Every structure is written in C-alpha cells, then in structure tokens.
C-alpha cells in the first residue's frame, strides 16, 4: 500500500516536473543546440549555444526598439548557423534586404517571408510554421506577447525540436505597444543595442552590438560587446575601449534585470 502511494507520488512529481519544466529534465535527452555565432565557447553563460526546441526573444532598445535593426542582424547571424531546413520570417512593415542577409551567411533562398498585419497574425504564422516538419526555424516580429502565447509557442517548439525566435518591436501608435509587458516562456531573452565603432581607422568598422542576455533558463544573464566579422562570418567578443579580442576571464560578468 505504502509502496503504491510512493509510486503514485513519484509519478505525480515527475508529471509536475514535466509541466513546470524547471530546467531540462534529467531523463530526457538534451535538445539539439544551435551554436551561438560567438566563437568563444562561453561556458559560464551559455552551456553550449542556444538550445533548439525553445523560443528565444530578441529585444531592441531605445530608438532601435521600433525598427529592430540590430535584432534583425543578430537574428540573421543566429539563423545562419542552422545548417538545414527552410525558415519562415513573419514580417510586419518593412522587409530585410536579401543581399545583406546573404552577407550574414543566411542563404535567402531558404527563407520564406510572410507579411502580417498584427501580432495575432504574426503569432499564428509562427505557430503554423513551427508545426511544419520542413521548417527548421521561424522568426516572428511582434509587439506584445502574453505569457500564454509564448508558452504555447514554446510547447510547439519543444515537440518539434525547431527554433522559434520572437523579434520584439515596439510598433508605435498601436495599442499593443502601451500594454504592460508580461512574463515570457522564452528560454533566453536578449537585448541587442547598436554600439558605436571605436577604431582609430577612418570609416565604419565592423558592425558592433552590445548583447545583453537578460534571461537565460538554466544559465546566468550577462552582457557582451561583440563585433560581426563579414569575412569570418562569426561574432567575436571585444573588450570595451580596445581593439583586440578579450579573453573571457577578463570579460566582466554583469547581472542585468
């Protein structure tokens, strides 16, 4: 009798764990990971790159929160690391420019675009895409996402093992932009800021972003200053006020959020 009770409690506990999904359950195999386009293996922050089977949120900041320029670049660099499968990009107003996507290593032939009128359509398109077998990743530009919506997307991703990206933009003049931000089921949440070039040479240096990892499930938040290299097609960490690659130990950990 006692034995069965313990069994049942254990089963229930397992169920609770499964539902709560606090970290990856021990008995499950690790979900496939998308190697983060950062060359240094950042073991302290991200065990082995971005896990697939999850959704990830990319935010802009300040002026760029509306246009999502830096976030689009980061998304392109991230999606380029997925080697096979088609991808869907659910757009709102303006479209990314194909030659530049190609320069990020993302073959424009693999991308399917759809233009959506509101958050509802973007999220629905994202959901349909993530349910489709041939789709390796789907990225949706949305203004406001509720916890329920992001959980739904997360569960679909988890089942299908593909990568969902929410590119959060603040669409001005839309009622959604003024709504209170809600929690999210995203595995990681990034804020990408455009950072000024700091070389002594004339002209524009390589694109430089400050990546704030605001939240990372099972990992630590952090902040990185990175540069995109068009030749090597990867992001490299740079130290502030210096033009050389920083070693990770020197790179200060900063808690955010």
């Amino acid at each position: 009798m006692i034995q069965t009770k313990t069994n049942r409690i254990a089963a229930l506990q397992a169920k609770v764990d499964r539902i709560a999904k606090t970290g990856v359950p021990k008995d499950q195999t690790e979900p496939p990971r998308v190697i983060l386009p950062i060359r240094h293996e950042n073991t302290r922050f991200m065990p082995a790159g971005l896990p697939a089977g999850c959704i990830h949120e990319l935010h802009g900041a300040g002026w760029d929160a509306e246009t999502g320029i830096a976030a689009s670049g980061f998304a392109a660099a991230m999606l380029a690391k997925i080697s096979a499968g088609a991808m869907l990009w659910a757009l709102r107003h303006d479209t990314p420019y194909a030659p530049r996507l190609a320069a990020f290593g993302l073959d424009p032939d693999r991308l399917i675009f759809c233009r959506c009128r509101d958050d509802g359509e973007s999220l629905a398109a994202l959901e349909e895409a993530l349910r489709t077998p041939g789709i390796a990743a789907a990225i949706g530009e949305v203004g406001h996402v509720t916890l329920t919506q992001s959980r739904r997307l997360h569960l679909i991703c988890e089942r299908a093992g593909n990568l969902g990206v929410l590119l959060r933009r603040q669409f001005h003049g839309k009622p959604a932009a003024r709504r209170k931000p809600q929690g999210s089921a995203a595995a990681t949440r990034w804020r990408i800021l455009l950072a000024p070039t700091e070389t002594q040479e004339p002209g524009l240096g390589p694109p430089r972003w400050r990546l704030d990892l605001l939240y990372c499930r099972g990992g630590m938040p952090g902040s990185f200053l990175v540069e995109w290299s068009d030749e090597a097609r990867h992001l490299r960490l740079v130290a502030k006020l210096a033009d050389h690659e920083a070693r990770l130990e020197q790179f200060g950990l900063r808690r955010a959020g």
Partner: protein
Amino acid sequence: MSNSDCVGPDKPLAIVATQGSKRRIVAINDIARDRGVMPGHRLTDARAIVPDLVTVAADHEADAAALVTLSHWAQRFTPSTAVSPPSGLWLDITGCTRLWRGEQPLLESLMHQLERRGIPCQAAIADTFGAAWAFAREAGCYTIVPPGAHRKRLSDLPLKALRLEPETLADLRRLGLKTIGEVMALPRAALANRFEDVLPRLDQTLGNAPEAIAFVQPPTPWFESLTFADFLMTPEDLQRALAALARKLCRRLSEAGRGGKRFEAGFFGADNTVQRIAIATSLATHDARGITQLLAARLERIDPGFGIEVITLRASRIAPLHERQIAMDQEQGNLATTAPLIDKLGNRLGFNNVWRFAMAQSHWPERAVTQAAPLARPSHRVWENGAARPIRLLSRPEPIEATAFLPDRPPVQFRWRRVLRRVRRAEGPERIAPEWWRDEENAPQAIRDYYCVEDESGARFWLYREGLYQNGAPPPRWFIHGFLA
C-alpha cells in the same frame, strides 16, 4: 415566376405589362387559366372574361434578379449555370450526371425541387443549348433527347422554338412556314438572303455553329455534391460533409493523376441562399485532409441560417501532378515539404503576402531584389555586395535635411523624422547610376551617391544624394534609404 403568396391560391391572378399603349397579360396562375384567360390577352378583354381578376404590375428588374438568384440556386446540380431571360435557365451538365447516376434522375430531381418551391417548370436535356431551349419550351413537361437525335425530333417543333426575332417569326409565318422541319428543307442561300438571323440560329440549334453563353462558371467534371435530407446546422457537421466531399473528389483526382490548385465549396441553404468559400494551394494537390483543413479554417464565414441542404465541392483549377515532383527534385532544404504551410499562410494572409526573395539582374538597390512565389525554383546564385548594404531597406526612400560641407563629402548632420543626428563616421560615396536604358532624359539627376554613416549612438544609416551639384541647378536632395547592422 409569379409571386402568388400575397393573393392566395384561390383567386385568379394575372401579371400585366404595358406594351406600347396597351396593357397585356404576361403571366397568369392556374385558376385564371382554367377560367379562360391566356397570356397575351389585353387586360380589358381579360377583365370581361374574369371580372374578379387580380392584377399585379410586371416588375422586370425583380424578375431578372430572381432569375439570377435561381441560377445560383441551380449550381447545386452543376457549377455551370446561366440565365436565359426572361424566364429560362441553362445548365451545362457536362460531367455532372454521374452524381445522379444518369440524366433522368438529375432532371427529375431538378424539377421536383423547383416545384417544391412553388416554381412550375418545363425542362429538357439535349445535345445543344438551342435544342434544349426548344424542347424545354415546346415539347411538353420534360424531354430528354438522346445524343444525336435532336435533329430528327426538332423538325416537328414550331418555329418559335428557334429563338428568332418576332418580326422574322411573323414573316416566316406569313410565308406559310410553321415547323422547324419546313425551314430546314429550304435552300440555305435563299434563307440567308432573306432572313439574316434564321441560319445562325438554326445552325446553333443543330450544333453546327458555336454558341456563346455567359455561364457563371465553366463546366467541370471535378465537381462533387452531397444532398442532406436533414439540414445541417453545426460547423462540425459541415466539416464532416466537407471531408467526405474532399475524399470523393481527391480519389478521382488521384486516379486521373491530377491535382487541384483551387477548390471552391458551395453551401446551399434551406432558405435558397448560396454561400461560398474558396481556398487555393501553391502546389497541385489531391490531399483530402489538407484541403479539408484549409476549407474548415474558413467555415466560420458560413452562416447555416435555417440549415444547409446541399454542399458542393469543385476543383476549379487543375494541374497535372508531375509538376510537384519536378519541384521536389529542384528543391534544397525541403522547401516542397513546406507547401502545406504556404497554403495555410496564403489562404489566411493572401498569397501575395507570402514570398521568397529572388535576385534580379539589376544593381539599382530597389530592383536588385524581387519577390518570387514561395515554391518557385531557387536561383542558387551568389548575392553580392552584401557587406555594404542595409539590413533593412525602406520601401520608399525618405527625404532628409542634410548638411554637407563639400559636394562629394558625406553629410556632417542630417535630420530625419524631426530628429537631428550628428554623423560621427562615414564611408562612401558609392555611386549607383540607373541603367542606361531607363529614364534617358534625366539620367544625370538620377545618379545616386550612397554613404554609410554612423551617428553618435552607433546607429548606422544608408543615405544617398540624388543628382550632382551643377551650376544654376537646384542643389541635389538627400534621402535615407535603409539601416545598416
């Protein structure tokens, strides 16, 4: 098509139209007919015969509208229906008799359903539109002329079955000609000389000349319908019925090695309304489940009202299926497996809102990228110039107020959308001229000098100066065209 509801079936009723200065009877009900009134009588004569005759003024517009409604109603038998004013309908039943297992059951069902709605009718099935028209009007209640037999049987019909002008008809009658057979026996040259509309009509009726009729939709064999004794009310029932129809249609499509690219479902309500939903697919398909899913997503637009009596499903665009296999061979990255997704998105957002990039042979930034169908063959070409191009291009360049110290220098500051931005770093210019075969006259003004600039916050913009500085000409204008990342 008299509306006798307002009078009651026990009163003699006549519909009266004014023809010239006379008022004539154009239609009557059975009681009036029994008491001796005939269409064509003058109203005064009719009143003398039946003093208590109830008359209603003819409303030709309402009749025409009712006829159009009836033609839509009749689409439950075949998608291809057309009106034949003032009171006729044409149905092209090519390929649709299979659903009723023969022509006779179809005709009986059609007449039965019309009579149940209080519409008395005569009908005929024949090889040609003209012959069907003639037999329906002049050969009694219903006629089915077997294939090839219409020529022989037409000769006994009166001349007015030929759809001739009233004047021609009167002339022929004056010559003592009464039946179509008598006219057919006449030498053609004489007929053509004296009556210009007799020979074309005769040839059309016999099937020797083509006839153009404005059908609502072309006839198709890819048509299925289901009739329900108990009217369907719930969306679940409708969806089940759609699934059954899709299975039937898709089985036939797959046997023929074909697929549909556009499907239309028609819902015929008990209140004689017709509602339709249509979906399109990017690849030809005979996947019944996929079609049902796409149609079911639109079912919310259907209002069952008093119930749905008949549901039809039609594949209105057909393509051979091997198109799909070619596409699969060409694709990398399983693009063809994404067809169901593209169909869902296309039907929800519109197919012009789902696309893939295609490269165009142009160095002009707006024209270098075009949109292609999502399942079009990929170009597999190398996209060039990517490093110095923006991540997002404005669909239309926006004018900015820029300050540049020297003609060929980047601006030191510019104002875009009322925000002043100081340029901290810049690269350029990259001169892009329009192709020589476009805009020949104003080519020097259309030259663009592009600069990549970075402001103090690190934001990068793609600006250009349109035109060159020239003596006497207004200074060139500046535009913002995109954002770099």
